[in-house]
């Protein structure tokens, strides 16, 4: 017989779905074909002639690829969390500046929030793109034009109009988008600069006074030493602190970011002339008039170590935990934490100016070209810790599927052995084993696992806890298979062909291997497939209750765990529907495969 390609077969079976089976001559060929088919091939053919089996198989392959191949391409650090990105809706296009139709040379300022960016053009107009959280992309009418400067926090935007008033919109949980009347009333001078970061905003007046509002008390940003006031010429806002540039070209810092205040002496005593300051979460940097960069603060991600550029730096900027510098040559340098691809800086780009905030970076070249890098968005959104749901689904799937496999292997091994011993030995051994099996099935499964996981699990790391779950699942779920195997052996043993083999004088051992076991094994295979789905669901159920795979390691079950909170169910559908869908697809396809396998093995299915 000629071999057909997989696609030809697929195509043919697809066609056959629509063709009525009543055709005369062709069917005889089917008979002839069957005449040279071994039972195994018939089983395979039966299996593939079942539409549901194909659907199941495709579904399962999809899930496998998704979990195992996908997770290779999307590595995950289980410990990584990013509060400002939490609960982000599914969506992409965070870097999609093209949607704004702004020419590079028209850009006056470009600033990004957690999931969006805003551009201010030279003629004072605004345009925003990215993920619309808290209506941040809906620019109010009074900010339509005549804007002088903008400041973007994680989820809010401030615009300083030509007339000196501040318009703000976006997230308002601390009224950070709205200049409080109290400040407005006592403000000394006219606002010349605005700043914003995580849930707070700041304004700097032409008299050198800085005012902060929003969530500022916990970060002590409301405390601005009096001797600073009146001398501030510029500043940069970071999550927990602000770095200030004073009128004597020195640097000061405010806020709770203690590391901020450890700035190098030469910046404080005026030895060098600082022209620009930038701040990250725990670190700050400064640029002096000679093109030298200074960085200080926390030691994580080597942010306090300035790389050797070998050229003069003309501009600096900062993301959340990453610093950037533009050299005279236009080369962009970046260091720090490579979260959300923020360090994937385009190479060979001669930048004139860069705009980096949080996890988005933009650069304009001297020739007026524009580029962007960093976080493009989250297809499936993020969870309550700001972690990418897609990545976690892949890695979670890997764990869930693996837990199932190992548990099934353990339970099948025990079930098969016990079933075979009981079936072949019989007598008191059979009795004993079956009683043990009965005891095991009468153990209430969930309470036991939960108790065990409390007792043993507390002293374990989450990895070994995962193995513990697999082993417990495996150890407790064999009785079904054992009974099936035993019953099947008893049935097969009484079959005429076994008696016939015995009458032929064939050795017991080879009767067992050649005549009894093949029929048992096929049943076992079907049962294994079906119980695999059950195991997976068990893992999910356990993890859902919080006793299975422990966070931060993801599994579909513990991702579903979030669905225990009403707010998640109401507001963040992507965090629980998606893992639920994954579990559903996997369990459904495995069940389809198992059932189709069972049908295919059943000799009666050949008849119709």
């Amino acid at each position, binding site marked *: 017989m000629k071999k057909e390609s997989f696609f030809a077969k697929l195509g043919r079976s697809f066609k056959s779905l629509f063709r009525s089976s009543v055709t005369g001559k062709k069917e005889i060929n089917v008979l002839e074909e069957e005449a040279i088919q071994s039972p195994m091939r018939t089983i395979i053919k039966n299996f593939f002639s079942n539409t549901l089996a194909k659907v199941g198989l495709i579904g399962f392959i999809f899930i496998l690829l998704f979990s195992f191949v996908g997770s290779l391409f999307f590595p995950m650090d289980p410990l990584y969390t990013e509060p400002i990105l939490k609960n982000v809706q599914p969506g992409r296009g965070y870097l999609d500046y093209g949607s704004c139709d702004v020419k590079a040379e028209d850009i006056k300022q470009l600033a990004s929030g957690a999931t969006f960016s805003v551009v201010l053009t030279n003629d004072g107009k605004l345009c925003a793109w990215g993920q619309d959280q808290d209506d941040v992309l809906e620019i109010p009418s009074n900010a339509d034009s005549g804007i002088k400067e903008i400041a973007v926090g994680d989820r809010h935007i401030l615009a300083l109009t030509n007339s000196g008033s501040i318009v703000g919109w976006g997230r308002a949980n601390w009224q950070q988008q709205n200049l409080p009347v109290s400040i407005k009333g006592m403000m000394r001078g006219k606002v010349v600069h605005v700043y914003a970061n995580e849930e707070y905003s700041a304004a700097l007046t032409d008299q050198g006074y800085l005012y902060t509002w929003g969530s500022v008390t916990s970060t002590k940003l409301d405390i601005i030493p009096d001797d600073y006031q009146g001398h501030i010429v510029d500043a940069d806002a970071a999550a927990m602190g602000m770095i200030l540039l004073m009128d004597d070209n020195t640097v000061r810092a405010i806020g709770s970011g203690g590391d901020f205040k450890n700035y190098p002496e030469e910046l404080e005593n005026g030895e060098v002339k600082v022209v620009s300051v930038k701040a990250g979460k725990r670190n700050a940097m400064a640029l002096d008039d000679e093109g030298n960069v200074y960085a200080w603060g926390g030691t994580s991600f080597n942010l306090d170590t300035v790389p050797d550029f070998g050229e003069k730096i003309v501009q600096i900027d900062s993301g959340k935990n990453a610093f950037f510098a533009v050299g005279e040559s236009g080369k962009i340098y970046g260091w720090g934490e490579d979260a959300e691809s923020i360090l994937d800086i385009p190479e060979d780009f001669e930048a004139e100016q860069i705009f980096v905030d949080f996890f988005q970076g933009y650069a304009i070249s001297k020739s007026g070209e524009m580029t962007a890098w960093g976080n493009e968005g989250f297809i499936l959104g993020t969870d309550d810790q700001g972690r990418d749901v897609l990545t976690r689904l892949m890695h979670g799937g890997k764990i869930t599927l693996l837990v199932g496999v190992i548990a099934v292997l353990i339970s099948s091994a025990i079930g098969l052995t016990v079933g075979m011993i009981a079936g072949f030995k019989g007598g008191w051994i059979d009795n004993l084993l079956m009683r043990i099996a009965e005891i095991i099935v009468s153990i209430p499964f969930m309470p036991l696992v939960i108790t065990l996981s409390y007792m043993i699990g507390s002293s374990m790391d989450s990895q070994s806890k995962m193995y513990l779950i697999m082993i417990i699942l495996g150890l407790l779920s064999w009785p079904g298979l054992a009974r099936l195997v035993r019953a099947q052996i008893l049935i097969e043993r009484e079959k005429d062909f076994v008696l*016939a083999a015995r009458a032929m004088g064939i050795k017991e051992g080879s009767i067992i291997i050649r005549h009894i076991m093949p029929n048992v094994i096929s049943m076992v295979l079907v049962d294994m497939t079906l119980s695999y789905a059950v195991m997976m669901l068990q893992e999910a159920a356990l993890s859902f209750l919080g006793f299975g795979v422990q966070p931060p390691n993801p599994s579909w079950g513990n991702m579903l765990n979030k669905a225990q909170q009403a707010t998640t169910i109401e507001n963040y559908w992507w965090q629980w529907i998606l893992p639920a869908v994954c579990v559903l697809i996997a369990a459904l396809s495995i069940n389809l495969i198992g059932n189709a396998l069972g049908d295919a093995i059943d000799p009666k299915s050949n008849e119709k």
Partner: protein
Amino acid sequence: MENEKLISIHNLKKYFPVKKSSFLQKEQLYVKANDGITIDINRGETFGLVGESGCGKSTLGRVLLQLYPQTQGNTIYYGKTIYEYKPAYVERILKNLPEQKKKLDALVEKAKAVKEDETHHNFKADDADRVFHEIVHLTGGLIYAKDLAKAGKLLLEEYHAGCKVVEEAAKLEKDSANRAAYEAAVKKQEEIRAQLDEMRKECEQSDAFLKAEQYWDHGIDLGMLKKEELRLLRQDIQIIFQDPYSSLNPRLTVGQLISEPLVGHKLFKKGSQELEDYIIEIMDKCGLEKYFIHRYPHQFSGGQRQRIGIARALALNPKFIVCDEAVSALDVSIQSQILNLLQELKEKENLTYLFISHDLSVVKYISDRIGVMYLGNMVESARSEDIFKNPLHPYTEALLNAIPTTDADNKELQILEGDIPSPVNPPKGCKFHTRCKYAMDICREKNPEWMEIEPQHFVACHLRKK
């Protein structure tokens, strides 16, 4: 026809224990599938076994082959002598002859003691009878010798000498130069036999002695064989099953099915060319095309499957085949094909059949002798013409009259009233008395004896008692 025995069954019983219905039930109940059957099957004949379902005819075939262990009784196989086969039990018994006799005497005592209060299931008498036969086939009348130890020793020597004769005969077949050694072995055996004859003369020439003496026949007691011995002997005794659908493993090809026992008995090497040639030869004999060899059973019709079953049984070159309802599941037009094949093979291969069927006309056509069974008992056995011409047992008569025929004289069927009683709790006395129109008082009380009324015509019926 030479009346040389091939199989001899004596007082064969097969009781299947019935699961107790409650813990309180004291007495273990049994399905008495075979309840004391005694028949001889001669070399080269077809012995037909008829009866209704549940009469134990299939069980008899299987117990005879030791597929089910026999509950009581002896099955002696004469296709090979003990000298040829050397089963382990021979030495065991002969070496410990005095102890064996003591054991037998004890059993006989016990049996005597019990006889008064006839309990429902009393195997004691059967035990004694069985052990007696186990020994007596090896010793003959010498079981009554005064010096049992000496008799045992002498018999053992005779046995070894006999084995030697067989060995030398085999060598002689290969190389005629060995004639001297062979003759020496034969002479030695004769000498020992002469000594044994001396011993016999010393014994008291009682009835018991003469009866026991008949049994000294070197046959193999199948019930005494070890598992492995029995497995190897299966080469000689084969079975063809009723259902060709269920008796062939659906996962093996025809070639594999036929080769499996051949390889299992180490007659051929697995995968060798000779094996394949032999399989094809056998298949050809059974009317199967050569190219079927790689096909699977499900690709065949019932008749062809039955041919596969026959080919497989035949491949081992057996001497005896049990045909267990071998044609009952087949269509009419196929049935005759298989019957003809069986007849043909029997003549060619010099086979002996035990042909089990519920279809009297088929049994009559194929059998030399017929046994009729009812509820675990043999009620009549005779040459096949005799049984039809002159049925002696009322059940046989009723059975013959109940068969609808295609004959022109469309006689009305005779009705045998009533149902077959349960084999768990069969009626007392003659088991047929509940349905027998000639039933007398004695029938309800006493089990009739197995009597030879005419030569070769046995019956168990009080009516025929002279």
